[in-house]
């Protein structure tokens, strides 16, 4: 029978609207049933906490005295809090440098790996992806040791040319210390995403381009990169979210880099300090909320700016 597949498009038929309604109802019931387990978890662990955080953020607690309802005062306090603002400024500056760097590295490596098919290339792909398997915690510990002047390799390598190794855990250079750590951790993951996208490109396009006399570089620039733009946009969004939420690496490195990394180094760290170290859940929730709002705003800006080239179907 042809009614089931074609009927939504049929116009003018007497029973089409009725059948459409029945289909829609059946779809709704079935659809919601499939959605239900996820929706339950979603409501419990995303929506409810968000509302609760909003609720908490309207109160203020103190060591002396009771908890008071203050509506938006905490938000005013957060938005004028120099520690919070410094943290936001840091993650923004960090993102501006980190994201192009990461994307550049992963893009170039992916392009190169797409071009070669040697066994070496295949192995390289795997090895560059491997850091993704490492928990950030471990990666931070590893690099914490590697950065050490005294017993990391830096001392030896720089000693070879008689220079003093830079202290990437110092106040001045911690920016670069973290830059390196995060790039190392994530470039492989982004690289694989781009690589997979590159592999999906129809190679006849390349042949056509070669006939026109294009060399590899031109092919890369004019064909490959434009065609993987959706993947690049995806990575950009991931990287942006992750960087604005920066927490794990600086938190782990903090004992090794005391003096360079303080408790409010990133907004997320500040929220953690307030809530779990100083016991102020109200202000901690406020900070989390404002941070969430900041991320939301920036990500939406990006999605909007790349809506034609991205794939986010908004």
């Amino acid at each position, binding site marked *: *029978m042809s009614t089931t597949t074609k009927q939504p498009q049929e116009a003018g038929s007497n029973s089409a609207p009725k059948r459409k309604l029945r289909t829609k109802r059946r779809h*709704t019931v*079935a*659809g*919601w049933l499939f*959605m239900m*387990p996820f929706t339950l*978890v*979603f409501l419990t*662990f*995303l929506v409810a*906490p968000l509302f*609760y*955080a909003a609720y*908490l953020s309207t109160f203020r607690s103190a060591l002396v005295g009771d908890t008071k309802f203050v509506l938006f005062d905490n938000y005013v306090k957060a938005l004028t809090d120099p520690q919070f603002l410094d943290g936001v400024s840091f993650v923004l500056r960090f993102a501006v440098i980190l994201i192009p760097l990461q994307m550049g590295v992963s893009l170039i*490596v992916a392009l*190169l790996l797409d071009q*070669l098919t040697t066994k*070496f290339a295949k192995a*390289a792909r*795997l090895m*560059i992806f*491997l*850091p993704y398997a*490492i*928990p950030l*915690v*471990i990666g931070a*510990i*590893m690099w914490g*040791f*590697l950065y050490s002047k*005294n017993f990391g*390799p830096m001392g030896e390598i720089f000693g070879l040319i008689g220079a003093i190794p830079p202290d990437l855990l110092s106040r001045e250079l911690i920016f670069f210390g973290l830059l390196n750590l995060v790039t*190392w951790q994530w470039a*492989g993951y982004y690289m694989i*995403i781009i690589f*997979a996208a590159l*592999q999906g490109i129809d*190679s006849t396009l390349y042949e056509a381009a*070669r006939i026109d006399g294009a060399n*590899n570089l031109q092919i890369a620039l004019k064909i490959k990169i434009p*065609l*993987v733009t*959706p*993947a690049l946009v995806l990575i950009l*969004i991931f990287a942006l979210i992750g960087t604005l*939420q920066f*927490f794990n690496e600086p938190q*782990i490195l903090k*004992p090794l880099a005391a003096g360079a990394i303080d408790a409010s180094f990133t907004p*997320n760290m500040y*929220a953690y300090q307030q809530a779990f170290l100083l016991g102020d*859940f109200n202000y*901690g929730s406020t900070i*989390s909320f404002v*941070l969430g709002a900041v*991320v939301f705003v920036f990500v939406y800006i990006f999605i909007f700016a790349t809506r034609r080239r991205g*794939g986010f179907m*908004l």
Partner: protein
Amino acid sequence: MTRTNAIENKRGPRRPKQVFTHVFLGAMVVYFLIPFWWIVVASSKDAQALFGGGSALWFSENPDYFGNLVALFTFDNGIYLRWLTNSTIYALSGGVGATILAVLAGYGFAKFAFWGRRFSFSLLLGAVMVPQTALVIPTFILLSNMGLTNTMWAVILPSLLNPFGVYLMYVYAKDAIPDELLDAARVDGAGEFRTFIQVALPILRPAVVTVLLVSIVATWNNYFLPLAMLSDPRLYPVTVGIGVWQGLASSNNGGGSIWSIIIIGALVSVIPLAISFLALQRYWQGGLTIGSIK
């Protein structure tokens, strides 16, 4: 496909560039592998050798992997093994659970034009953007009110939430499963769920495996969530455990001798995932295509 390119590259004036490419890639590989090499080397050393000079990138004079391993697994009544077990439990249950939820929901989004779908979808996309760490504090309080903090559930339940997994499944299901196939099954009298299991699921397998791998990795590597939720060291996953040891070693507790077990503990914790990656290359290399090309 790309093989044609490679063959063409091997001829003629492309040669020098080929060398350069290989060298560059080689340098990249070295860069990405140095920390692994370091940790393998460092695990052979005891505290004295670690801090007392000698090359950082070469083994100790008396490599003592066995001794360090023994120390690792006997420290504090063998709590490290407990941590490894915990990580496995969390990763598997959280990962599998999240995948099941994501597959069901993604399929639902893709194949059923239910009432409220558009709105739900934009909610979902919004959720992808919500920083997970922003949720930890209120989730902690919520779970604390339910009496669930400091239990395994406090880690597993929130890990079931993987909006990006839903998105991946949605994209894949939408394109890979023809509506006609489903309708044919329905016409044959199959219920929705049976249709899903017997018709859709086999087609969805590559995506399912990808989501599974990503979810397992994410849960295994999770640090902030268990850090906030758990205070009983016997429930820690390996990430939090090692982090705590590192904090201990940095402060004046612990007698100072635990740096060597921190290092070998880090090495051991990395091995399961690394091996899984190597063994399951086929799946994740194919699967990550979805969601990135339209």
